[in-house]
């Protein structure tokens, strides 16, 4: 008979945390290999392809950084929301909302304004668009006790339909030969990139600034403290006189706004016009959930986990093309890694020992 004994760990060292993280990721990769194997894909080949595609060449690394930009922006916003246990699953919709408002500003005001005015304006309106889309579920939760997981998800679908409506209808470009895209943004509204890459560094810079600012907010300010209290103990928060309404709304302005920034950045930096939701965002809003989780909701770690998952996205594209795998393959990665991260947390917090006992 095997006896399993579980006890709580009193102290957790940084080394233990790191070791658990690495082991969880390795175990997750093994599980993913198994799924690949069952579906007739050679896992060694697949993983080699993924990592050579994303980190194995200069082009791959540049692409990985490009895709890390939205993941980092969104991930940092989600980290704040999740700290308060506000389960914002709607970053995808908030990104699209920011893409819509950003594009509108760029198309309408861009032709008359110089770059140094129009670019900040696009980011500002992108932020506002995302924040607006994010605040609605916050208000629904506080005033009507609507579960935010469902409302943020529904808002994703709604925004995707609105965006599609715009590009096939009123915003359809005159220069696009009947394709459902808007016209190209004017040159002044297009973000600069590092030459020979698609890295739109203005957005990247915004992301870095946001991480530093939000890092300070979370760890050094009263607001950051309130966010943590709300997340850990809602009754204590009420007792301490924390304004639940105000704090939640601000959290979602930040969280949605960051996703909105990412959306404006994707349009102005990568695509240069608005097109189908699935091409504006390759599921960044969902992948960023795990980015935030892998970073343990720490804004600074979001950079690393953002790069890691951007690598998986880029490598995922590579194996989709070479092995003919569906777009959902990345979801397998995300989901399984998330499960193993959760399991890792358990073994970090609890000491599990197996004993052989003779019965």
């Amino acid at each position, binding site marked *: 008979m095997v006896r399993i004994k579980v006890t709580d760990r009193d102290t957790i060292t940084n080394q233990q945390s790191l070791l658990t993280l690495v082991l969880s990721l390795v175990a997750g990769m093994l599980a993913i290999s198994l799924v690949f194997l069952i579906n007739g894909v050679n896992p060694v080949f697949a993983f080699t392809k993924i990592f050579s595609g994303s980190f194995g060449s200069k082009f791959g690394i540049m692409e990985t950084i490009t895709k890390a930009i939205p993941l980092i922006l969104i991930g940092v916003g989600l980290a704040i929301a999740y700290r308060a246990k506000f389960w914002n699953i709607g970053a995808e919709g908030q990104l699209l909302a920011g893409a819509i408002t950003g594009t509108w500003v760029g198309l309408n005001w861009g032709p008359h304004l110089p770059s140094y005015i129009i670019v900040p304006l696009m980011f500002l309106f992108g932020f506002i668009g995302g924040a607006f889309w994010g605040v609605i579920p916050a208000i629904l939760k506080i005033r009507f006790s609507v579960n935010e997981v*469902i409302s943020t998800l*529904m808002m994703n679908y*709604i925004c995707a339909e609105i965006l599609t409506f715009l590009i096939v209808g009123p915003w359809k470009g005159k220069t696009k030969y009947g394709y459902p895209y808007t016209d190209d943004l004017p040159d002044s509204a297009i973000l600069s990139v590092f030459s020979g890459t698609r890295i739109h560094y203005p957005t990247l810079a915004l992301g870095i600034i946001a991480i530093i600012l939000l890092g300070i907010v979370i760890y050094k300010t009263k607001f950051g403290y309130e966010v943590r209290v709300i997340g850990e103990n809602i009754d204590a928060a009420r007792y301490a006189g924390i304004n639940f309404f105000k704090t939640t709304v601000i959290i979602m302005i930040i969280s949605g706004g960051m996703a909105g920034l990412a959306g404006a950045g994707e349009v102005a930096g990568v695509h240069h016009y608005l097109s189908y939701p699935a091409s504006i965002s390759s599921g960044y809003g969902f992948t960023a959930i795990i980015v935030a989780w892998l970073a343990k909701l720490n804004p600074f770690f979001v950079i690393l986990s953002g790069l890691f998952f951007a690598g998986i996205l880029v490598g995922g594209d590579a194996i989709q093309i070479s092995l003919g795998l569906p777009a959902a393959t990345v979801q397998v990665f995300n*989901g399984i890694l998330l499960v193993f991260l959760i399991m890792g947390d358990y073994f970090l917090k609890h000491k599990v020992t197996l004993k052989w006992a003779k019965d």
Partner: protein
Amino acid sequence: MEEIIISVAQRTLVAGTPLLLGTIGEILCERSGILNLGVEGVMSMGAVTAFIVTLSTGNPWLGLLAAICAGMLISIIHAFASVTLQSNQVVSGLALTMIGLGVSGLMGKPYVGIPLPVKMNSFDIPLLSDIPYIGPIFFKQSPFFYMAIVLAFAVWFILMHTTIGIKIRATGENPKATETQGINVSLIKYYCVIIGGGFSGMAGANLSISYSKSWIEGMTAGRGWIVIALTIFALWNPTRAIIGAFLFGGIFVLQYLLQPFGISPNLLGLLPYAATLLVLMAIGFRNSQKLNAPAWLGEPYQKGER
């Protein structure tokens, strides 16, 4: 006119059936205190499994059976994470959705666009189907519809009027007290999550071998999330879920009805999602404090706690 009304009513029931099946499963699961946000992924797994098995065996009933098994199997992930490991149920449910959507995409890739030669045929109930109006609406449906209705009442009866039902509800309301009665709380939660997953798998099968006879990635189209909203709408009561599911079935049908009037299909496409928000708002507005959700819903419970 008469024919149109009958056909609209009939299609409403057809569109609402997968929602009802999923909702019954989620109610069972949530009554035991476990929030399962994995429905969308589990449904997708059910859909692809049913499709593949039906295509290769030529028997839709085997497809259905396989879908139920697939739904139950994949739900073990959530049961293990949320019951044994006491992890955050929101995160673990989301992970289940991602895995379900991803794995079903992988499995179904070779089958995209292949039409199913056989499907779960609708079954006319003798005598009853001859009743004017009511007959064609209610008694010329696919077996999924009849099963969903019967299961809704069965699960309601089990939950409300049997010992096992009391145990399940007690687990969701007060696991500590339940445990002191010598009941294995963890086991009950495991059963409820896994059987609930079977219902979601069935709902997926309904989509791929009866509703649309094909497999495409993302064919669940948010129905799994609507199911979670319907669970709240139903106030965790399977018989109330019947009303909710067919209300939403009606909204799905409404999309097609309004299309000839020149409204953009995309604006119509957002109707079910907007309606979900409105319904939840209405419920929250009416009794925001007291929805009577299971008291321990979503809370991890450690054996022998406090």
